[in-house]
């Protein structure tokens, strides 16, 4: 079945994780995404295997005249452009929104960076961790000690996905108007959205939230407890949960089912799996607290396509994550990562370049000497 974005062409100039996640997301929904990199800017292999999936890859030096000319030809065929440069850089390169929309009024132009396009920090470079640092995510985890990042780079992936959302909204609007527009988001905005529960202020507001490495939960009935062999997440704070808990034999003697100290003692007496079985049978949500290694060894995650193993023609045996949304009519697709620069000649041929012109571009250093370059 066709994807929802079949027929949409995207040019992806982004690097690292956030921007390329936007391109990957659009590819998952069916877009033809062309990743454009200069030959010298080779990404690390793991991110490439993760956020390069579903794309084609061309190496092109757009700082050279013939490279920029080829880029313009591509941009004339594109519906979307993704870039993660700091403010002003794209314009200096000749690929700003005004420059491209003059040639192609329908283009949707997305900008993704660390701190946004407006405000005094708009020129600051940054990565996921810089956005975490700026918005309180790391001090929250560190408590009184050294700050700590969250376990995953939520801002990177969240920013890319939200940028893809913005691009799709702009495409939706273009269906009505025929013209494109600019889309922007940033790592700091994403970090703020993740923090939105606590990111409030009003007259009389007194900030308070659970923080620090010693934090175990928000209440005795919604909390992590140590068991005899690991950790258990208890979620018994909905209507009826207290009664269901005290109906269970180990908790019957509790005068207060929310007595944290008593609960700590009780939960420490049995294995995690025993508690999970007992609590779930009673209708109380609970889960074993898992590590990434636990998740990797979970056969369901593989059966459900949440961890995908494949033999890649260039990179050998690899594993990567799957895709969450299940669409009944336009299913999403995972795709594989391209070889870096591996589609260079093919894409130029599609644009009408002859073999001789392509060889001439190789000789001039506009494109690499050969397609398909190794990654570290």
């Amino acid at each position, binding site marked *: 079945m066709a994807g929802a974005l079949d027929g949409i062409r995207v040019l992806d100039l982004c690097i690292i994780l956030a921007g390329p996640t936007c391109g990957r997301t659009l590819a998952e929904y069916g877009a033809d995404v062309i990743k454009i990199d200069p030959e010298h800017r080779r990404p690390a292999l793991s991110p490439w295997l*993760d956020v390069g999936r579903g794309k084609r890859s061309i190496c092109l030096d757009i700082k050279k005249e013939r490279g920029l000319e080829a880029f313009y030809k591509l941009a004339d065929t594109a519906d979307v452009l993704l870039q993660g440069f700091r403010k002003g850089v794209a314009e200096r390169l000749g690929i700003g929104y005004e420059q491209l929309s003059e040639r192609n009024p329908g283009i949707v132009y997305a900008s993704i960076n660390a701190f946004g396009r407006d405000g005094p920090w708009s020129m600051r470079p940054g990565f996921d961790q*810089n956005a975490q640092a700026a918005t309180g995510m790391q001090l929250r985890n560190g408590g009184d000690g*050294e700050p700590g990042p969250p376990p995953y780079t939520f801002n990177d992936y969240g920013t890319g996905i939200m940028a893809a959302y913005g691009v799709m909204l702009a495409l939706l609007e273009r269906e009505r108007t025929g013209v494109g527009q600019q889309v922007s988001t940033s790592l700091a905005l994403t970090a703020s959205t993740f923090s939105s529960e606590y990111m409030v202020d009003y007259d009389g507001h007194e900030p308070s939230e659970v923080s620090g490495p010693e934090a175990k*939960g928000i209440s005795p009935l919604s909390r992590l407890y*140590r068991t005899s062999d690991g950790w258990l997440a208890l979620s018994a704070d909905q209507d009826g949960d207290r009664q269901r808990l005290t109906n269970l034999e180990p908790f019957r003697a509790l005068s207060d089912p929310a007595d944290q100290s008593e609960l700590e003692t009780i939960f420490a007496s049995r294995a995690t799996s025993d508690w999970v079985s007992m609590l779930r049978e009673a209708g109380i949500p609970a889960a074993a607290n898992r590590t990434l290694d636990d998740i990797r060894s979970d056969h*369901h995650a593989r059966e459900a396509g*949440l961890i995908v193993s494949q033999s890649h023609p260039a990179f050998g045996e690899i594993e990567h994550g799957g895709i969450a949304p299940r669409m009944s009519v336009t299913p999403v697709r995972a795709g594989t990562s391209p070889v870096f620069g591996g589609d260079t000649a093919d894409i130029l041929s599609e644009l009408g370049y002859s073999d001789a012109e392509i060889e001439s571009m190789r000789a001039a250093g506009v494109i690499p000497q050969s397609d398909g370059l190794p990654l570290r």
Partner: protein
Amino acid sequence: MPGALSPYTVLEMGDHHCVAVLGMLLADQGANVIKIEPTSGDPLRGTPVFSVWNRGKQSVTADPGADDDVDRLNSLLSDADVVIESFYSGENPFDVHRSGHQAIHVTLPGFGPGHPDHGVRGSEIVVSSAAGVYVDRSPGNTEGTSFIALPYASIFAAMVAAPAIAAALFHRERTGRSQNVVVPLYDAMFTAMGANIVRRPDVPGPAALSPAIGRFYRCADGRWINLNASYERSLRPLLEAMGRPEWYDALTDDRLNQNAEECEEWAARFREPWLERTAPEWENLMAETGVPLTMCRTLQEWMETEHARESGAILDIDDPFYGPMRQVGVQVKLSDTPGGTSNPAPTLGQHNETLLNVGGR
């Protein structure tokens, strides 16, 4: 100005936080989001976050046991473009029609159909725990796993669902066909795990962490900075600003990346220079030199920055309960259809009369 979703009506049903956040992401882009609440109100009512996640929406109350209410709900549904739902129980108590209309149906269960835990209430702590969010962050890993207060799983799932809805609307505009979308919270977390999941069994991962990447250093004022000089182009200005340009060659030697012990020795050496200035001084200096370095702030300090306000990370809303209120800004900005909202969260059943024609409750 109108948002790109202005032509669309969204029906929001559920008590899971993820559905409220998803509704906010849609309302912020102009969608007419109608929140269906039980007559007792959403469980979050009375908390500040209700005013954030429900801004710009309309509120209609309905009793799942009252036939008239269910009929009215189905009438609303027949005019809706999108229905989003997520209940902690996993079951929608309303007997709503799922076919015979053009609405795109979006559900966000904790665990998806086919998962062994499907049917378990997918609360934030349960899903995050299953997805490896709570790791041991205590010094020396002595205290066991650490809870994080931010609802990453709920918000991440909402983020993943938002483009799925946009894609489904785009497809419907082109073909007239509607569809069903399922985004389990647990499954969405695999997108967040991302590069952590990627593995090439025949290639070992990086052996060591550079002293200039992803590190925290304490400054003269006792405050912390986070340093991410990932590129060689930022390493040289970093070392010059630190007064240690002679370290460049050793730090760019490829062998260092394979030697964890030596990296830690370098990290220990790195601790000294930062004590020569305060964290704000370092942050300003590195901003001038283009080095990705950021002072670790509290969330309240972030909200006080000029940048948070000017970049749109914060917006002001006059909330009927809390009064003038500062909240998170709009996540995605579109130049021609910016959306945004100045409308606060609705009072309970505020729109019963206009939408259901039954008078306020």
